[in-house]
């Protein structure tokens, strides 16, 4: 079922208002790379458009978030296959320690979390969604959201102070 011109206008208005926020979430879900985040949002919005005639206005934002999480998971799987590159020598300096600013450090630490755990942390603590909303976006149980987000936060806490640069 193709969206009607009126539905096209509604979709356009929705995307205009929400796109920047979706890109931000997508970037956080796929290792902080803006280009990959944009790819994810384009995929998600295409899926959203296909479903738009059946999406109720009050659930559109939640549905869009779910599309982004799904697209980010797909992208993450593709990235994982592409990303494995052998190196003769491992870097002996942690990249995090060379970064300035807590924001960048946290974003870098988020990359180290497994996909589901990262999604739970991003949606719960950065986007400020409730457990129920996060579970809906991730299509999992609320219990799973609670455990993933708690473990993710714990892991971030473990590494965040330790990776602060040493001050002379």
């Amino acid at each position, binding site marked *: 079922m193709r969206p009607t011109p009126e539905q096209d206008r509604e979709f356009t208005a929705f995307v205009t208002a929400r796109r920047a926020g979706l890109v931000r979430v997508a970037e956080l879900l796929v290792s902080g790379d803006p280009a990959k985040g944009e790819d994810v949002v384009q995929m998600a919005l295409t899926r959203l458009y296909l479903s738009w*005639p059946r999406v109720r206005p009050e659930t559109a934002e939640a549905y869009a978030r779910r599309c982004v999480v799904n697209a980010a998971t797909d992208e993450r799987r593709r990235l994982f296959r592409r990303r494995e590159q052998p190196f003769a020598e491992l870097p002996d300096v942690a990249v995090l320690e060379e970064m300035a600013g807590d924001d960048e450090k946290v974003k870098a630490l988020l990359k180290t979390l497994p996909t589901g755990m990262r999604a739970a942390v991003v949606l719960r603590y950065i986007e400020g969604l409730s457990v129920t909303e996060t579970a809906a976006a991730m299509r999992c149980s609320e219990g799973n959201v609670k455990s993933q987000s708690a473990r993710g936060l714990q892991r971030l806490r473990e590494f965040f102070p330790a990776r602060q640069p040493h001050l002379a």
Partner: protein
Amino acid sequence: MPDIMTVLQNLPQTSEPADEAVVAADVARGHRAVSRRRQRRIGFTAAAVAVVAGVAAGAGQLGTTANHPTTTAGTGITAAGLQMVAYTGEQPSGFEVTTVPDGWTVISSQPYEFVVAPPGRETGGGPSAGPGPVFYDGRIAVYMLGDGPGPNASHAEKVDINGKPGKLGTFPKTTTSPGAHWLTFPSDHGTVVVQVPDSTGLSNDQILTFARGITVTDAVR
């Protein structure tokens, strides 16, 4: 040193409206995706129907017609001995169905369509549940017409569906597709389309019986 929660909650927010050209590109991608999906569905249906037709033709050449379903003159549908029975399985969302061919089940349910498949065809030929296309070949598809013009009703037969005026017609036959039957009837929520590939073996009466057992509920979209 700030707590990790504080850092997470204070990551920069973005709330600027998206650029008009970027949004237009998103809509254009959506349009192309709709076209691709439509072409895929048509392609799969045509290919599957062609295969069924090929198998049927091959079987006929082997001289075993005595053991095969006979063709009902004028309809192009084979009378395969199917019996219509009360449906006792899980109801689709957006619809209620009371009568199905014996052994057939609802394999896909969306608030705007559902698909009923014969035994052994519940899976395969495409996903049977969840998002994504559900292929109609060899299966009965019921969906809301939406805003489109619907099938060409110039040669359709007028039928009665629970006191409402329905139409029963055929999709044009092509070199790759022996066609399918369609039936439309009005409901309180719009026009309902029942699509029945000839390969299912349902007669016109059985299609009518099936359609008369369909109720569109308030959950339909």
